[in-house]
């Protein structure tokens, strides 16, 4: 089995000031992303933020109005066939030729990749657990099964890089767990670089090593998940009574950087690791703690933009 030894480029995907304008509205604006070999890259954003448009540009479905996509350090525009031969993808919902079997659908995709052996098709079907249903028409499949077949087709030919657009959307909790497990497995066992979009921070947190957040068409944050979700900058919400006594305690507590209070709740900027100690101190001082909820600053930030977006909707 050929592993991902074909290319040695360190940067698998780079988008340079990528932009797409529909009429007068920019769906994506100056999106510069960089995905390095071996990463699981999480692309996070609320619905309508420009995730799908960006992915469509990366996979040549949509032509950028501005900027450029580089795959394996080569421009997609001029070397489309060469670079796409090394990429697999699933864009939005997994749609297939419903009147054909799962196997036939994979054969069609395989043919477009230059041909795939029967064994290889059986192998990817096995990997996503569809061996039993391989010869059934796809129109009889449940959403979850289609989604798994969607991942299977992205894996045909064992590409070095796969792009998965919201692969867990519409799956039940068990299905979500399976897909996440599969993504980790592909990354570690097969060393496939993975680009994964989601509107759920928790999903990115659980699967990705690097991430970017896109909002209103712009990339607002980018970096290692480890660094971005560092708990040193958590925001902790405290509800307690009596309030004045609680305030007095937190003001003297070590590590608390900023305190905001609106009379009912107190918001503290402090390391999440010290929350348990704070709770013990409050109780020791005779304060009744009703709620003590740590939230990391990025989560807080992301929640604020998703809520902002949903208000627009």
């Amino acid at each position, binding site marked *: 089995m050929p592993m991902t030894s074909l290319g040695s480029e360190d940067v698998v995907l780079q988008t340079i000031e990528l932009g797409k304008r529909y009429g007068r509205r920019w769906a994506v604006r100056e999106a510069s992303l960089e995905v390095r070999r071996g990463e699981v890259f999480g692309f996070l954003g609320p619905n309508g933020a420009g995730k799908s448009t960006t992915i*469509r540009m990366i*996979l*040549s*479905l*949509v*032509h950028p109005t501005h900027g450029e996509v580089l795959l394996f350090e080569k421009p997609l525009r001029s070397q*489309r*066939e*060469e*670079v*796409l*031969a090394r*990429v697999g*993808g699933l*864009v*939005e*919902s997994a*749609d*297939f*030729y*419903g*009147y*054909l079997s799962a196997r*036939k*659908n994979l*054969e*069609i*995709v395989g*043919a*477009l*990749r*230059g*041909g795939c052996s029967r064994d290889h098709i059986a192998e990817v079907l096995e990997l996503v657990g569809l061996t039993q249903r391989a010869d059934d028409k796809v129109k009889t499949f449940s959403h979850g099964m289609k989604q798994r077949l969607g991942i299977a*087709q992205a894996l045909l030919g064992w590409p070095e890089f796969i792009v998965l657009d919201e692969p867990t959307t519409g799956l039940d909790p068990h299905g979500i767990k399976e897909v996440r497990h599969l993504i980790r497995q592909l990354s570690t066992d097969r060393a496939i670089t993975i680009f994964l979009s989601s509107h759920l921070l928790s999903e990115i947190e659980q699967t990705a090593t690097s991430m970017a957040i896109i909002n209103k068409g712009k990339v607002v944050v980018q970096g290692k998940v480890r660094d971005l979700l560092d708990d040193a900058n958590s925001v902790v919400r405290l509800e307690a009574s009596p309030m004045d006594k609680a305030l007095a305690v937190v003001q003297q507590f070590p590590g608390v950087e900023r305190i905001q209070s609106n009379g009912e709740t107190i918001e503290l900027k402090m390391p999440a690791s010290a929350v348990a100690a704070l709770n013990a101190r409050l109780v020791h001082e005779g304060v009744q703690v009703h709620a003590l909820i740590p939230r990391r600053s990025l989560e807080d930030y992301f929640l604020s933009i998703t809520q902002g977006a949903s208000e627009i909707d």
Partner: protein
Amino acid sequence: MILRYEILKTYRKWRTYIGFLALFVLVPVVEIALKLEGGGMLRRMTRDIAQDFLLVGNLFNAYFVTYFIMNSLWVHVPFLITLVAGDQLAGEATGGTFRLILIRPVSRTRILWVKYVTTLFYVCTLIFTLALLSVGLGTFLFGLGDLLVPGRTLTVLPQTEMVWRMALAFALATLSMWCVASLAFLFSSLVENAIGPIIGTMAVIIGFIIITNIPLELFDAIKPYLFTTYFTVWQKAFEQPIPWATMARHAAILAGFCVGFYALTWYIFVRKDVLS
């Protein structure tokens, strides 16, 4: 390889067989009706000349009814063709399967070409079925004979020439139906649902046919620019002698329309943003 799967995709669809099914209803109904009518139509046609000429042999035969049925090439067969040709690109958009096939290391130019060839192939199979069915069933019901060509002048073509003349006529008919398919294919690249291309193509064809048949000087001037004007090209295979030069010119014009429609489709398709 890709072409094989494209043909498989088309011929595994129920939609593709509507055309064949329609022919298997239309042709027998027409031929049986003609059989029951017992040659009344032929007698009416020949009423005037029968007084001056002695018409011998079996003139009410398979070739005669086939010639009659070939007039379905004006509207009926084009409609059956648009069902498939109009769906060829729009159907992929409706099904969301452009996202499946256009992210592959195959250029859009190639994918479009394969789809176009598949569409033309479908037209060939449909016309071939029409030919086989009308001549075959006609032979069974009426037998063979010389062809009395309906028209202003009296032409009777010997039975010995009918095989190649019929083959030529159906080949020319295929070319004009390729034109219909190309137009539907073009419209198919513009929208995300097959209904538009089907109605659009039929509207154009019916509109053009009406213009072609209204004897106005203004319309005469534009007739040469309407592709439907050249749909009569198959009838030239039954003229005596065959006007080869005109036939070749009309065939070339039809081919030119096909190329033109395809070139425009290509121009649209490679620039298209796939949002479906």
